[in-house]
């Protein structure tokens, strides 16, 4: 499903937000970058809320936004069936949707979430971690003793589509991030069949310092210019 992005380019990667999200089908599994609203692709999420096919979604993201904002709006629109992440209590709408049986939640320790995504993007089926051992979140996990210590097995994660946010892209799709808005974005950009990157700016090929590129272009399928203010902290 991923487009060959290293071949000769006959077409720009740049899409309108609505055009990009039209590729998302009902029942899709999405990875969405961001730590709360910081580094979340808010323009693409807004377009998702307007796209009728974006429903019955499984969303892999650290949080589900804030009330009515970012993924919090997608939830209120009734588009999210299941959420996989590490911290949902900061959005009371999520707690309510879960209590009312409208939202399934799979809670992972934040480091396990990040590593599951990294591993999924790197072709790794799963990994062993000590995190969660002997806790409610480790129940049911396979165990193994490595160098005398107990570890839990965790499967990696993969998505149909990743929605990520970067500061700047070049026309090939190389990405550079901004400060702590980087967070889950580079990992998610590796772990989906189709990757849509929302950016503030698109520059010509050659304008980015190769040493500064965090996500090489072969991971990125489409670029969307951001039209929303960056998501601030609380």
């Amino acid at each position, binding site marked *: 499903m991923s487009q060959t992005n290293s071949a000769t380019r006959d077409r720009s990667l740049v899409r309108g937000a609505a055009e990009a999200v039209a590729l998302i089908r009902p029942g899709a599994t999405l990875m969405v970058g961001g730590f709360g609203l910081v580094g979340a692709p808010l323009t693409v999420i807004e377009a998702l809320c307007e796209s009728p096919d974006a429903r019955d979604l499984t969303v892999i993201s650290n949080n589900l936004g804030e009330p009515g904002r970012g993924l919090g709006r997608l939830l209120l629109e009734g588009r999210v069936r299941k959420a996989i992440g590490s911290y949902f209590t900061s959005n009371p709408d999520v707690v309510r949707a879960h209590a009312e049986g409208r939202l399934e939640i799979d809670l992972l320790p934040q480091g396990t979430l990040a590593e599951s995504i990294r591993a999924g993007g790197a072709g790794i089926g799963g990994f062993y971690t000590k995190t969660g051992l002997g806790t409610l979140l480790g129940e049911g996990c396979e165990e193994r003793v490595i160098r005398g210590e107990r570890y839990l097995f965790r499967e990696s994660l993969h998505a149909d589509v990743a929605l990520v946010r970067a500061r700047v892209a070049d026309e090939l799709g190389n990405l550079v991030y901004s400060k702590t808005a980087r967070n889950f974005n580079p*990992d998610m950009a590796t772990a989906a069949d189709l990757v849509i990157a929302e950016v503030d700016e698109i520059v010509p090929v050659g304008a980015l310092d190769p040493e500064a590129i965090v996500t090489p272009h072969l991971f990125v399928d489409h670029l969307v210019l951001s039209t929303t203010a*960056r998501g601030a902290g609380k």
Partner: protein
Amino acid sequence: MSDVQNRIAARVVPHIPPGAVVNLGIGIPTLVADHLPDADAVFLQTENGLLGVGPTPAPEDVDPDLVHAGKQPVTARPGASYFASSASFGMIRGGHVGIAVLGALQIDAQGRIANWALPGKPVLGVGGAMDLLVGAKRVIVATTHTAKDGSAKIVAECTFPLTALRPVDVVVTEAATFTVENGELVLVDLADGVTLDWVREHTAAPFRTALRNPARHEESIDHA
């Protein structure tokens, strides 16, 4: 934040040596940064992807892309670096973060803590607590000695879900400091004006007493 919370944060400071890489949890642990005598001498790591957290910016200097794990605006010190979440937790689980300062709901007699979930409530948030507890070289708990209802937080066995099987290294409250040695709590310090009897009354777990500065405490007990 209250006076008590700031007193607890200040009592954590002597446990942080110069040059340490430190991750501060949300709540009282975050306040520790304000009490460090030389903040340049400590490297603060935040799990959302920054090593070298600096002070809170003035309102006009807030950058929406620059926050700590509590999602509050911060700055980056000279020498800071940014990294992805997977790398950040690689640092944490991999033992590269020297000290984690965490809050706690309960601490058991072996020094294990519960700090992420309440019994009988849906479990919807954990964040980085489990990874920090498993991976940091040393873990310091910064907490009020008792819960809001006055009940003991230091208990024989946690009734709240445990965060990890790994015991913490130090427990700092406004009244006392315990270390965890060979699976038992050891009372090593009393705050000024606090008596051993007060700690005994407000601690529901067995502990050994080995005060590091008994003379000072005898004096404070006399004045209590």
